[in-house]
């Protein structure tokens, strides 16, 4: 197992190196750039050239890339040009990461907590009204764009009924102590219960909006997978052996049906990161997704490079975790 993990980690370094080159070249091949964002209407040919020279953007791409890698190998990924000018790009990622983790975690919990049981029940009661309703519900989850879901959630729960906040991570003037950057956890750790409760209330709508697609996917995969397993010979054998329904469900059906579901949940982490770009923007959630959106709009190369690379690293890591989980669930994989 250790060798497997080390090999995968080494592969990850290779993937990131290739990706760094691709991202670097891709960003710079896009028309425009940070200079337009900085100068706006004030831009003239002479001013643009002067600024490009000052920022080193006038150099040939290979030279720029070598310089970037030289600095990156020393842990210096450059400073932001627009998102938070002067701030280390890696620091921006690290400071924004807790917000995205908190949001993604809650969204994933909602998706899994609703998706797996509903998927299982829908499969067991295939063809009933409950099955049809949940399938339609999940289809809507996939089909409706996140920003529209978000708009509706905010309109009803925040504006009309005034039950939850419209956007942001915490109410202003709360004087909350920050420890980890995960606001709910911080409130619990410092026993500032009002702060934890406030942060939790701020989490509800964005997590729901972000969870819609992962929920739908987890639900559908669980349903399909359970249906497949129910048809398997070993389930029939278990029934013939006279095992109780509970044992058959837990040991034979659910456990076997979970393999594709775990893979899907792992893949959904990537979907959550991309979904966070929109969700964080419409909920003023100061996370990695919002920084990515700002970075693209303002063509902030250092921030974009760090965020894209970090997102890729997280994605690869999560997939590694999924594979390890596989091995835990299915002993056959462990022995291979």
């Amino acid at each position: 197992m250790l060798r497997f993990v080390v090999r995968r980690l080494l592969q990850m370094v290779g993937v990131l190196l290739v990706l760094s080159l691709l991202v670097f070249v891709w960003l710079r091949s896009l028309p425009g750039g940070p200079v337009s964002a900085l100068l706006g209407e004030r831009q003239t040919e002479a001013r643009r050239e002067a600024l490009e020279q000052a920022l080193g953007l006038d150099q040939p791409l290979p030279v720029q890339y070598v310089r970037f890698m030289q600095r990156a190998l020393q842990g210096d990924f450059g400073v932001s040009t627009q998102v938070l000018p002067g701030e280390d790009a890696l620091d921006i990622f690290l400071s924004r990461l807790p917000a995205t983790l908190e949001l993604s975690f809650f969204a994933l919990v909602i998706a899994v907590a609703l998706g797996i049981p509903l998927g299982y029940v829908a499969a067991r009661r295939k063809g009933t009204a409950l099955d049809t309703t949940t399938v339609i519900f999940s289809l809507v989850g996939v089909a409706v764009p996140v920003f529209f879901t978000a708009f509706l959630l905010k309109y009803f729960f925040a504006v009309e009924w005034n039950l939850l906040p419209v956007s942001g991570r915490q109410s202003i003037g709360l004087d909350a102590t920050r420890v980890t950057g995960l606001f709910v956890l911080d409130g619990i750790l410092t026993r500032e219960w009002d702060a934890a409760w406030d942060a939790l209330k701020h989490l509800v709508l964005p997590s729901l909006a972000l969870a819609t697609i992962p929920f739908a996917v987890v639900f559908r995969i669980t349903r399909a997978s359970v249906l497949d397993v129910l048809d398997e010979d070993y389930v029939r054998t278990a029934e013939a052996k006279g095992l109780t329904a509970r044992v058959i469900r837990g040991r034979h059906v659910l456990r076997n049906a979970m393999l594709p579901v775990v893979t899907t949940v792992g893949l959904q982490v990537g979907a959550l990161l991309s979904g966070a770009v929109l969700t964080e923007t419409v909920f003023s959630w100061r996370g990695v997704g919002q920084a990515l959106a700002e970075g693209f709009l303002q063509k902030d190369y250092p921030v974009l490079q760090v965020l894209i690379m970090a997102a890729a690293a997280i994605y690869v890591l999560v997939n590694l975790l999924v594979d390890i989980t596989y091995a835990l669930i299915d002993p056959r994989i462990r022995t291979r």
Partner: protein
Amino acid sequence: MSVTRTVATWTTAVLAAATLASCAESERDDEGGSGSGDDGTFVFGAAGAPEMFDPFYATDGETFRITRQMFEGLLGIEPGSAEVVPELATEWTPNEDGTEWTFTLRDDVTFHDGEPFNAEAVCYNFERMFDQNEAGQTAGEYWGYVMGAFSNDAENSLYQGCEATDEFEAVISISGPTSGFPTMLTLESLSMQSPKALEEGDANGIAAEGEGFSFPAYADAPVGTGPFTFGEYDEANGSITLARNDDYWGEAAQVSEVVFRVIPDESTRRQELEAGSINGYDLPNPVDWAGLEEDGNSVEVRDPFNILYLGLNPEANPQLKDLKVRQAIYHALNREQLVQTQLPEGAAVATQFMPDTVSGYNTELEPYAYDPDEAKRLLAEAGAEGMTLNFAYPTEVTRPYMPDPQKIYEALRTDLEAVGIKVKVSTASWNGGYLDNVSGEPGKYDAYILGWTGDYDSAYNFIGTFFGNLKDNDFGTDVMPWGKQLADDLKAADAIVDEDERGAAFEEINRQIMEEYLPGLPISHSPPALVVGPGVEGVIPSPLTAEEFDTVSVGGE
């Protein structure tokens, strides 16, 4: 998993949580909250986060909106207008040739850190701005723009020196008279900052790092003289809090605190306002104005201080060198209809390249009539019937002068096609090449939509920016026989010391631009608005979008 392993796992988790919890202590004050007094908090929804808090290096409106509440310049702007009024200087007088300006300063001002404001502080500030390292010269965008150069290139700088001739009297020398001086001292970037804080925070310690700049500690801890002091920037939650300056030299602010909340999405800003969690935001979409008013909010419309124009580039399309062709295009445009259908209420058809609030505006000029027949006749005379125009508009942007570039483009394109001009559309995102293509030498588009919002009340800030630099302007005037004359005339007018005389000279140039040269086609002036919720009073909309929040109260519900 065995029972023993399960118990061990849970025990480890509980111990880890307990350890973490024991490290985390609440840092709350006993009183809780912050701020001085309890006259309410004005919460403003900002579209973006501030770049930093040292206005000298800042370039964007979101930053200036915040720093404006904390900093003041020698000269100020009359709320609700573009008129220059005393602020930290009570009087200013030039010598005969307009190269030395004597500023009499207020004697009752202290910086937020308790340091006195006096002539020495003024000169310290100017020398600080002038004496920038290489990175600072690039980042100090506004100084470079209005002063032309820094200390390493002193002979090309408008600023020549500052002398404290008395405790409250400073003399600033400039290389030659210009309409921009001293009006440019109203610019947020040229605000007065505490010399002690600048020194201690190593304010000029900016450095190039990779593709950006790293800023010194001072950029996060600004110290000015204004009605609000810096509170905190909660980056993780996207809010900036300013506290009332109880020792302010003028009338103290109405509210105890101003909070700026970063809300990038406009529909979310509107929902926050509807939910009552913010008190206002800037640039509501014009289509929402009526709805916002119906909901009990107040849409505060500013006087327009901008210009939307159709830029023409004779370098890209030689047919545009012919005045008749340019006039034909102008006559083809139904600008009255465009203003009524695509622009917010209060927008006006432009007669020249500046709004009527700027001195030097020529009141005699009439708008070019919408006359498709005349357009066709002129095109025929010029032999340009059926000409093709590579016409561009930007995407991913709204500006106060163009709320929806695509719709404006569509309207103009329809008019052009109606007189037989073939339109080839080009488009690019604002930061994704549009500005590069417009400002490149030569520019890539034959015709393009662009505009300008004035920095301060100066004709040169409008038409000088457009045509004053012969070699590097978006209109390609260097290939026109009159291009040099126009640039020279603009510079000559700008250097006239007498205000009335200078105003008359700019009026004449405006006439020439519109009747003889027509280098581009001014379209309209649009009034940007801001919206405040019920109970908010005292917001004075500024044409320069330079609202000061010390007059605002939130208690009137």
